[in-house]
């Protein structure tokens, strides 16, 4: 696993049925402009397809963009699907996530949670932090 911050690989994904892709595309470009290699797997992914792509692409972090309210169901399933493959790639969520859901998501193994309005440097920092913590 890569710990050199200059050459991180991140998979950004939309899991479930939510088609709102403004956030995921903006974040993908922000990360790319920060020197991070970004892979986007497109819309309508399942926890299984995301986990498989994350392992195949040997990424350092998985970023999920979730706006439909399904994060409490789907995000823990992504973590479980990754772990079921014998690896522990950290998962970061961004989108419409109320504070009241944060503790439960952390308990389910989500590394970082970015709420609405998170600025660019915070997004990049959260991804780097997730990668660094996982490497320890």
């Amino acid at each position, binding site marked *: 696993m890569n710990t050199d911050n200059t050459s991180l690989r991140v998979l950004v994904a939309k899991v*479930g*049925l939510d088609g709102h*892709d403004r956030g995921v*595309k903006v974040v993908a470009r922000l990360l790319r402009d920060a020197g991070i290699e970004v892979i986007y797997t497109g819309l309508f992914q399942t926890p299984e397809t995301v986990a498989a792509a994350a392992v195949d692409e040997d990424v350092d972090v998985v970023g999920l963009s979730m706006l*439909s309210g399904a994060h409490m169901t789907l995000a823990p399933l992504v973590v479980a699907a990754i772990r079921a493959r014998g690896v522990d790639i950290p998962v970061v969520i961004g989108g*419409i996530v109320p504070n009241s859901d944060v503790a439960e998501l952390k308990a389910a193994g989500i590394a970082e949670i970015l709420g609405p309005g998170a600025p660019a440097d915070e997004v990049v920092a959260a991804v780097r932090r997730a990668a660094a913590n996982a490497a320890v």
Partner: protein
Amino acid sequence: MTNPREQWQKAFDASKVRDEQYQTMSGIPLEPVYGPEDGDFPGVYPYTRGPYASMYRSKLWTMRMFAGFGTAIDTNQRFKEILKSGGDGLSTAFDMPTLLGLDSDDPMSLGEVGRCGVAIDTLADMSDLFSDIDLGSITTSMTINSPAAVLLAMFVAQAENAGVPRAKLGGTLQNDILKEYQAQKEFVFPPRQSMRLVRDTVAFTAAEMPRWNSISISGYHIREAGSTAAEELAFTLANGFAYVELARQAGLPVDAFAPRLSFFFNAHIDFFEEIAKYRAARRIWARWMKERYGATTERSMQLRFHTQTAGVSLTAQQPEVNIVRTAIEALAGVLGGTQSLHTNSMDEALALPTERSARIALRTQQVIGYETNVTHVADPLGGSYFVEALTDEMESRAEEIFAKIDEMGHGSMLEGCIVGIDENWFQGRIADSAYDLERAFNRGERTIVGVSKFLEGNEEDQMDTLKITNADEKKQRERLSSVKQDRNEAAVQDALDRLAKDAVDTEVNLMPALIDASNAYATVGEMMNTMAGVFGRHVEVPTI
């Protein structure tokens, strides 16, 4: 030939006007409109100043609040609440599985049932949704696109079972599939096959549902996905031209269906730019309909639109401030002459709205409508040097974009829109504009109160938000399973077989087969899968 003021006066005199004191708070009498004899007037071509001569003096905009969550029974309660507190039209939000034509028991629906809207699987749910609501006396809007024909069929079946004939049904089907590929991304079939379903709904409603708006051509989602105001304007109207060409190709005379096309625009936070956008939209539509498509009746040229305030402008931080943003945006819609309006609730950057926050959003419209007197005079900003110049600028930027789309389609806006989707042109422009805006924000060139500046108060606890539990998902799956047990399987199979057969023949209108299948309690997913067997499914190539 009479001058524009005389034309306006004639139309105004023929309009019914609400019985009210048309004066300022201090008693200064107000004219219905102001302007020079030979200037533009509302209700007079090219309708820059409004589609109707009397505008809000005849009727305020429809205060149409978008609602839907959980099961049909839950949403039916919310609908009744909206009607009781003075809302005068319903607007149905469907959940993600329904928007994508999936049943609640589909594995892909896990975690999404009833979450962003109401779950509808069969006619039984549609009956619960409108239980004890007289569909003949209110208008109903349904925000549905890929499965629009299926939901329209179910709606007609439900209304007729309740004794309201289809010809009496008033309302709007969003049914704007082009913007799904461009912006909202809730697509199922490939573009050309989807357009066949749009053609079928337009032809069906034109023939059998005279009070029904067949397409709500929507810029809202294009803007929310990140476009500029000019792109929202241009892409939306271009899509409108594409639907006009589609219906004409199907042999419908333009004046037979164009009066039932309506529009849906965003009201973002840049106040004057939004107003200019609405004014430019009316002028462009009128001119294109008359000059390019040969429309002859006024209704075909008069652009009418619904407005929703900008969801993306809301902040999770200090959410009460969103009430102020929404009020300003709503006022832009009203000063721009909207025919109906949805105001977002303060908590929508976090969750679906609570009943209380939805009520405050409706009250915001009522303050504008009943307290401010801004409704007395049509197009009150017409003649402002600034607003007129901005309107002209919006128009010319839109015309540049039309020229590009027309070129992509070799002289056909319909082809241009489909080619632009296939080549990722619309999607790429929207993503570029979204990123430009994000960078401007990150460079500190744009301020968002409570996010980039003025942060005191952000440390307070977040407000309580509406919680939708997985219990609704479970309830809905049980409901579906019991409907499936009670229905006649052979009748369902017959109806689906006929649907498949009709789908193969592109000359056949699919609406009758869909209504029959609805009445047999075929599910949304079964009907969509049957059609996908013939049409195929659309897959977007992921690009950043």
